[in-house]
């Protein structure tokens, strides 16, 4: 039986939110099949991956620590994606934010000033913005695709990070390991809850969700971004500038990615190393889509994707599975989500039925 798609004529409000739920269920079912194919007990594996990380006493704080960078990055990306500005180089902007803020921590290594950490936050934002400004400039001035330029710059950023931690910023007492000195107290993200790793970045991510929602729903620029994305011609007639949408989207996404990178190195990691990100910048793209390009949705999606990281770590330890399984699930989740999204605009019908309808 061939399937046929029938336009609904309008967006289905049910499937806007039903699609992510269905996609999650399908991902879990597929995960069970993959676990079986790998020769593991599917039920026990699913439990280890998706439930066990939530049962320990530190579960909730850890989930928020992992979700914070995802949410920070994805809120920025969501606004840009709405305007069809495809910044997929958030990973590089994250790295530059970490380098700018972390560089400040190393430059003022002996400082105990309470101003050091706020300065690092500012440097992180500026670093990420500066890196995102390159694709913005190349797109608005030379029409070069921001998809490819922002991604290429991610590889450049990674090499820059490696150069710095094996070269000028290497810890002189680090036994030759490619890493910087550990940041001092004044350069560390303040801890919110004693005994956990919950840092200031978690709170900032929650604030950014609120601000992002206001910008998207209530501000003129938020409205302009949506119009530029959905009806570029209408936007042009209304005098909304596409250049402005590109610059705003990339600078916002870059700044938030840079801030996420700074919080990660000044929080959970505590120094600069080549492994400052388990692909947060790429996973955040999935978070943005799963969260329906809406800041509040992004918050929930961020927690779900954070769980795949925790589950991946747990499966690595308990089941001896390679960490890569995490990215397989993340990719599959996005596949299902994109497929289920067809239900927002179309009904799925069996072909035989529409033939009957046509005859009648």
């Amino acid at each position, binding site marked *: 039986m061939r*399937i046929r*798609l029938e*336009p609904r004529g309008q967006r289905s409000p049910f499937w806007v939110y039903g699609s992510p739920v269905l996609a999650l269920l399908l991902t879990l079912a597929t995960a069970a099949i993959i676990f079986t194919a790998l020769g593991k007990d599917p039920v026990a594996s699913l439990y280890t991956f998706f439930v066990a990380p939530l049962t320990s006493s530190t579960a909730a704080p850890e989930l928020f620590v992992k979700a914070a960078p995802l949410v920070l990055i994805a809120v920025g990306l969501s606004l840009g994606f709405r305007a069809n500005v*495809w910044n*997929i180089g958030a990973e590089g902007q994250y790295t530059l934010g970490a380098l700018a803020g972390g560089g400040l921590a190393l430059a003022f290594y002996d400082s105990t000033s309470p101003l050091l950490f706020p300065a690092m936050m500012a440097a992180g934002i500026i670093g990420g913005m500066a890196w995102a400004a390159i694709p913005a400039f*190349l797109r608005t*001035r*030379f*029409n*070069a*695709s921001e*998809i*490819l*330029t922002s*991604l*290429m*710059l991610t*590889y*450049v950023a990674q*090499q*820059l990070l*490696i*150069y710095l931690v*094996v*070269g000028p910023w290497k810890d002189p007492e680090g036994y030759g390991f490619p890493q910087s000195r550990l940041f001092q107290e004044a350069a560390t993200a303040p801890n919110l809850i004693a005994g956990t790793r919950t840092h200031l970045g978690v709170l900032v991510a929650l604030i950014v969700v609120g601000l992002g929602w206001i910008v998207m729903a209530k501000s003129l620029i938020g409205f302009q971004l949506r119009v530029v994305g959905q009806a570029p011609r209408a936007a042009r007639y209304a005098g909304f500038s596409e250049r402005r949408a590109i610059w705003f989207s990339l600078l916002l996404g870059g700044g938030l990615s840079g801030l996420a990178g700074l919080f990660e190195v000044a929080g959970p990691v505590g120094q600069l190393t080549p492994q400052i990100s388990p692909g947060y910048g*790429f*996973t955040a*793209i*999935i978070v943005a*889509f799963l969260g329906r390009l809406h800041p509040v949705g992004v918050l929930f999606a961020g927690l779900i994707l954070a769980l795949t990281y925790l589950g991946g770590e747990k499966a690595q330890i308990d089941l001896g599975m*390679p*960490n*890569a*399984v*995490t*990215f*397989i*699930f*993340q*990719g*599959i989740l*996005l*596949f299902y989500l*994109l*497929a289920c*999204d*067809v239900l927002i*605009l*179309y009904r799925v019908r069996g072909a035989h039925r529409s033939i009957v309808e046509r005859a009648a």
Partner: protein
Amino acid sequence: MSGDIAQIVAAALTVMTAATPLLLAATGELVTEKSGVLNLGVEGMMLVGAIAGFATAITTGSSTLGIVAGVAAGAGMALIFAVLTLTFLANQVATGLALTIFGTGLSALIGSGYVGIAVKPLPRLHLPVLSDLPLVGPILFGQDVLIYASFLLLAAVAYFLYRTHAGLVLRSIGDSHEAAHAIGYRVIGVRYLATLFGGAMSGLGGAYMSLAYSPSWSEGMTAGRGWIALALVVFATWRPARLLAGAYLFGGINILQLYIQAWGWEIPSQFLTMLPYLATVLVLVLISRDQTRIRLNAPACLGKPFYAAG
């Protein structure tokens, strides 16, 4: 003197082996894009092709079967993309990204048991007399089979696109799917085939990386070459001949990296590793700033979903 010749030969070989995976993947993506489909998942398809080819070659001991497996794996990945974007009308940019994320994970999972193993590199052509000629012998008549295949496939694609009726149909679908549909051409069917061909070629490019270029497997070994291949298609303004020039230009950058080090310049290796990525940005800027040229050459329906009403 003979040392100079040996050096020139070695340099030519380095350029060619570096250019070939890019050329293969970009040739496939060119056909996909000419049909109006933008598949950003080249990197993911190359990685899965690389590990499928490598694992098969190790298991069966046959590099021919390895190549076949790489092609099949690339096409299989492209099939996922085709079903999502062509049947379910999903956003092509997002689906391409998902394909790369998925391919990165899948290849790492399959490849976890194959790290640090070496495979016998692809055999090189050896013709009596011809291959033994100085200079031209090893360069023209002593390469591995896939290097010749990359030229032949590019020529075949150029011929197909511009000299056959089927190629004309494919290009018309890429330029105006509504008109092509109205005449009675099967837009979705042709796009499926073009997307699968692109995937197969990306898989072949990936298999070339793991069977000839390296020849070994390491996680994420394509290191952005899939993205560079995508940029090459833009750089070539969707023309097959310019694709060849672009791929060999990037092959040349590879050798530049080696030579700068050999000349004893004090440049940290990380900056040399950045070169191909920076060069990609540069060529994109140089080509894209001429908007008229891009508009004239880019398939008009590139990346746009097609829904056949009625």
